[in-house]
């Protein structure tokens, strides 16, 4: 197994993003000096850009703009995490990583939030994401033209490709050569595979379904001063090792070294606009109980697919009585989740699926529209390995209780588990609105409505039965499928004009020239791929375009 970068690009990465080298080499996971010496801007100082949210999209923007010499600060509602002190190798003890402020869910297929959807604090949801880092396929950028569903992006795959390559180097991503979509290679060699991955490979081989190891944003070998994965299976609880990529370690250190400020524990409550010029002037935020106003020449919102629409809808003014950038009632709409059923297979052997990162092996063989099927678009299949609490909730969700529940759980070491990601279609009524209820800041909470369409249901069914066949082919004694959802994107989508999107292909809002949205909210479609790599790549592209052309009229 090779443990060095294949194309020797570590030096090239270091030249453009030295984050991995700014982390100390020893057992301490953060660079205390870098944080202590971080630049602080005054509220009244008109900085070049203020970013709301320091997650996947926000941190990428922060690092890119700081590198370009911009005076930039990112405000995050949550803490500036210290993995040594703040994170634990424990499921229930990781509750504080999630966004657990009040939210209301509705619709005919409401999507439970909390631990399964979004994070808070510097690093955002990638602190507790699994770590799969696939690209979207070229077809994802024009599903309306090709398949008559979804929405075409304002740019094509080839426009994003250089940014995919850049971010894959910076995370870095490990995996086998990728045959699907636009075939490509990964900077790090694939990780060894555990019992769960072995089962997936065995079952898929028996059925002639192609699988590949990866792609995961987990270092294989040292990368800068980041250490090798220790295969402990707690990726969804935050990586205490610094092996799994999150912006906290992949982009924030380099941003700080280039003069950016990260302002944690700062909840942004509105974006302000000048009624006369129609330009954004900065953000109102609450820190230590005190309301403040940060002035900025650009406002960049990256608070996640629920909080971004919520903030825009709550930012009303004479010019925008129905919410910022909401002239055409598009804010909050076309929100998507992926259908993410998980299928377990019970084996006579001990699998002990917890002994590896949950993300190991994938198949994108069912990703594209198959004209022979009654549905459009497709799904991918990946290893997942729920820990005991989540596993017991799966059975409880099937109404298993009492002695039956305990008996199922005593079999924990015998189960393998696969998860599918089904491309649910964007629909206008799947959306965020403001509820009557308010949070502790007095800000109305988000209400998120979701209803599936027939195509969504057909995909879920097909994906579940495919996973069941794979596990049975691998020798499972019996299988069972749990229905769930993952990965919210959309809600402030990109479009070609103000009637089709909230922002343009450069993530700049049509309504307010110096306001950008650079998180998962801007995605018009979601493919059957995990979204973080695409979110970061879209943000990196937007940063590039912004730096080259700060004033759209200039």
């Amino acid at each position, binding site marked *: 197994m090779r443990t060095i970068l294949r194309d020797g690009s570590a030096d090239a990465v270091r030249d453009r993003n030295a984050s991995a080298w700014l982390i100390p080499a020893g057992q301490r996971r953060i660079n205390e000096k870098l944080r202590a010496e971080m630049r602080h801007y005054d509220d009244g100082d008109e900085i070049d850009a203020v970013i709301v949210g320091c997650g996947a999209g926000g941190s990428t923007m922060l690092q890119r703009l700081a590198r370009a010499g911009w005076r930039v600060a990112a405000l995050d509602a949550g803490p500036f995490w210290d993995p*040594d002190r703040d994170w*634990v190798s424990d499921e229930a003890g990781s509750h504080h990583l999630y966004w657990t402020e009040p939210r209301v869910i509705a619709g005919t297929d409401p999507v439970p939030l909390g631990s399964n959807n979004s994070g808070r604090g510097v690093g955002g949801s990638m602190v507790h994401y699994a770590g799969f880092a696939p690209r979207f396929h070229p077809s994802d950028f024009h599903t309306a033209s090709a398949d008559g569903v979804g929405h075409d992006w304002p740019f094509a795959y080839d426009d994003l490709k250089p940014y995919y390559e850049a971010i894959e180097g910076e995370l870095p991503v490990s995996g086998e050569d990728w045959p699907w979509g636009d075939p490509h290679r990964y900077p790090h060699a694939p990780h060894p595979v555990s019992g769960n991955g072995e089962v997936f490979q065995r079952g898929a081989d028996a059925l002639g379904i192609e699988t590949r190891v990866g792609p995961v944003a987990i270092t294989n070998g040292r990368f800068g001063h980041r250490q090798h994965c220790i295969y402990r299976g707690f990726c969804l609880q935050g990586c205490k090792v610094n092996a799994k990529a999150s912006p906290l370690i992949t982009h924030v250190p380099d941003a700080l070294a280039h003069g950016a400020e990260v302002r944690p524990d700062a909840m942004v409550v509105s974006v302000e606009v000048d009624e006369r010029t129609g330009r954004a002037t900065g953000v109102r935020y609450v820190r230590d109980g005190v309301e403040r106003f940060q002035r900025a020449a650009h406002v960049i919102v990256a608070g996640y697919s629920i909080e971004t629409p919520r903030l825009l809808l709550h930012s009303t003014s004479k010019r925008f009585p129905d919410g910022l950038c909401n002239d055409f009632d598009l804010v909050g709409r076309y929100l998507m989740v992926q259908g993410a059923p998980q299928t377990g297979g*019970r084996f006579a*052997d001990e699998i002990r699926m917890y002994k590896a990162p949950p993300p190991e092996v994938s198949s994108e063989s069912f990703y594209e529209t198959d004209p022979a099927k009654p549905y459009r678009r497709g799904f991918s299949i990946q290893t997942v390995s729920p820990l005991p609490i989540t596993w017991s*909730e799966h059975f409880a969700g*099937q109404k298993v209780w*009492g002695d039956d529940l305990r*008996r199922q759980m*005593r079999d924990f070491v015998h189960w393998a588990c696969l998860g599918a990601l089904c491309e649910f279609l964007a629909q206008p009524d799947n959306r965020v609105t403001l509820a009557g209820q308010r949070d502790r800041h007095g800000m109305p909470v988000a209400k998120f409505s979701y209803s599936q369409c027939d195509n969504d249901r057909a995909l879920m069914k097909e994906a579940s039965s495919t996973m069941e066949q794979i596990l049975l082919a691998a020798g499972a004694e019996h299988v069972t499928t749990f229905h769930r959802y993952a990965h919210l994107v959309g809600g402030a989508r990109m479009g070609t004009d103000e009637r089709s999107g909230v922002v343009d292909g450069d993530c700049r809002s049509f309504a307010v020239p110096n306001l950008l949205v650079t998180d998962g909210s801007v995605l018009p479609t979601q493919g059957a791929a995990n979204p973080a790599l695409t979110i970061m790549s879209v943000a990196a592209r937007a940063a590039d375009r912004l730096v080259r052309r700060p004033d759209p009229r200039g």
Partner: protein
Amino acid sequence: MAARLPEHGVTPGHPHGDAPSRFPGFDALDQADAWDPVTAGVVLARLGPLPPLRFFTPQQESVARPLLDLILAQHEEPRVPVFEMVDQRLAELTTDGWRYEDLPPDPQAWARSLEAMESDALAEHGHGFAACSPDEQAGMLESLLDLGDGVWHGMHADRVWSLWSRYACTAFYSHPWAWNEIGWPGPAYPRGYKNPGVGTREPFEVPDAGPLESHGVPSRGTDGDR
């Protein structure tokens, strides 16, 4: 790394005393000195005293205790203190934040659903839930589950079940006694695992000694965990 811990006290391989174990001799706590100190602090606190009850009223308590015991089949001591752990979460508002549109926030939803269960017990059996026989209690839970997404006292029955079972499972399977029962070693930092792969074990993992009973997925439907 944590200092060597004193020999731990009661850590039954099965939360219910000396019942036979699938993983004989396995004790996740044997590895506690290999856990990082922050994790050890969080996990070991679950074995220590819990704060006094603050959330549930005595009447709600009289329903919640037997109900949680029923859901988790905790029929005798020593029990994982699930009821106390749920009380603590609700008192401290350590909720997941989200709620269904037709349900109030978790604390009120708990209070309301427990009171509804009590009123059903009085109506059906002429005495409170706590005074019901185990069969009567199980029957009432079964009828609630049979309602599926039907409405029960103004709430979707499946959402009430989801609320109860999520809190119950989170509390029970966060406890090292439950880990012992299922053969799972718990925290793994900074140690990690060296022997992944089908049928392989670490030196501290104990092989499954075989079923205590026959396996099989219970036949109740496969409704989603919405």
